[in-house]
């Protein structure tokens, strides 16, 4: 079957209209999870079916698409989704954050600051921040309705009682415009400050759970915390071993069986950009040659 057998961006027009209506309502009620009739996609749940449906509903032929998985452009999930839209929508693709108009992401916000006109689409596994505290949808819905978020603070408090600090490191809950508590998807809490006051449109799609939510640009997003235990965006206490960046989020890579390790930027585009600009880290080939 030829690729022309598909509608532009794979989904049929009626499905796109349904998703588009949900997206507009999601923007009108920032942080509120809008139910939508999630479709089966030609990839398994957990591979970003929600993000893919949101991206498909947003794409135009003029777009330049970037897809990242944990910050990397070259991992299986990112490559397969990028190729999916190359085939079904014929859009241009890029690995450069600055050149992209639509960025679909799994679990990271790019290090390069986003700009007005860009759209960041998050893949979300569990959109309900209260789900692991209260499994019943009827109850969590009522809790959002009544702004009854005490349970979430109890959870954070129990973190402090047990570990001496808020140990939640990813999917760190946030409050949007003082109203809805929202799951920012499993991004590291290092990325939480970038959610707030961001010039880009941020859209969240959860395929298996059939939920869409959104943050318009310049929305106030606050990470939940306590006066005596304020929120801290944490990262590994190293510089990138390839590009030397001290301010980027790092992945820890085990390099042998003797416990050697290196830290590298999780955002591959950011790291290669810095290396191309001449920055070097502890383990980059050039610095070895010099040594």
């Amino acid at each position, binding site marked *: 079957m030829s690729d022309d057998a598909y509608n532009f961006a794979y989904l049929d027009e009626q499905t796109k*209209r349904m998703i588009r209506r949900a*997206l507009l309502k999601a923007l009108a009620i920032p942080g509120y999870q809008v139910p939508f009739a999630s479709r089966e996609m030609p990839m398994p749940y957990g591979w970003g079916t929600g993000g893919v449906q949101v991206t498909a*509903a947003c794409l*135009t032929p003029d777009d330049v698409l970037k897809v990242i998985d944990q910050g990397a452009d070259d991992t299986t999930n990112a490559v397969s989704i990028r190729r999916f839209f190359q085939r079904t929508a014929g859009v241009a693709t890029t690995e450069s954050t600055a050149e992209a108009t639509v960025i679909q992401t799994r679990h990271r916000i790019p290090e390069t600051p986003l700009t007005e006109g860009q759209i960041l689409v998050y893949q979300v596994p569990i959109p309900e921040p209260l789900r692991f505290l209260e499994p019943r949808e009827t109850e969590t819905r009522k809790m959002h309705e009544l702004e009854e978020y005490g349970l979430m603070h109890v959870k954070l408090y129990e973190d402090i009682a047990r570990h001496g600090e808020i140990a939640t490191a990813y999917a760190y809950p946030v409050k949007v415009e003082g109203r809805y508590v929202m799951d920012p998807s499993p991004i590291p809490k290092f990325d939480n400050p970038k959610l707030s006051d961001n010039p880009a449109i941020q859209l969240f799609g959860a395929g298996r759970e059939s939920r869409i939510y959104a943050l*318009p*640009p310049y929305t106030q997003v606050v990470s939940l915390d306590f006066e005596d235990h304020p929120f801290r965006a944490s990262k590994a206490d190293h510089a990138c071993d390839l590009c030397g960046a001290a301010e980027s989020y790092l992945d820890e890579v085990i390099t042998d069986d003797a416990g050697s390790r290196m830290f590298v930027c999780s955002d591959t585009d950011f790291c290669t950009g810095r290396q191309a600009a001449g920055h070097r880290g502890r383990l980059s080939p050039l610095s070895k040659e010099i040594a």
Partner: protein
Amino acid sequence: MTAPQDASVLSGGFVEPAVQSAHAFRALLAAMARPGTMQTVTGAQPPAPLSVAAGVALLTLADPTVPVHLAGAADTEAVRAWIAFHCGAPLVAAESAAIALGTWDALQPVSRFSMGLPDYPDRSATLIVELPALTASGAHLRGPGIRDRAELSLPETAAFIANRARFPLGFDCLFTSGSTLAALPRSTIVENA
């Protein structure tokens, strides 16, 4: 059987639905994400008195699952037939509409439109408000999507201040004039100029 329609009913839709509705949606998305910004849309030629922008919004959002209400002068035989052919949307009373279309005066009282439910605030009406002119001046807007302050030539402010007071309940508005559209979601704080 209804009487045979004028053939003009069959025209005025998107020629390339997938691509044109994608561009139209991006304009709607940008408008709703950045209240008060003007977007220009093309591709629809709905019958009078509908504007191009209102036609584009209908083609992009309405289908057989979306009950539409036509208010006042927008409720003509030609418009009904055009929506029936191009969107297939059922035409309903104001109270049960997901999308309502008309001039601001014709849409009054706006309190009759669905504001959503406390547990499902998304189940609310979207009003497509036809204005004689649309400019980025007038009432002051603050809130999500607006960096500092925006301005929009709203037909009045009291109704939108009341609408914001009910947040997260409330209706959302698309303002259309010619081929220009702007949006005012319920989250926007409206102040008199």
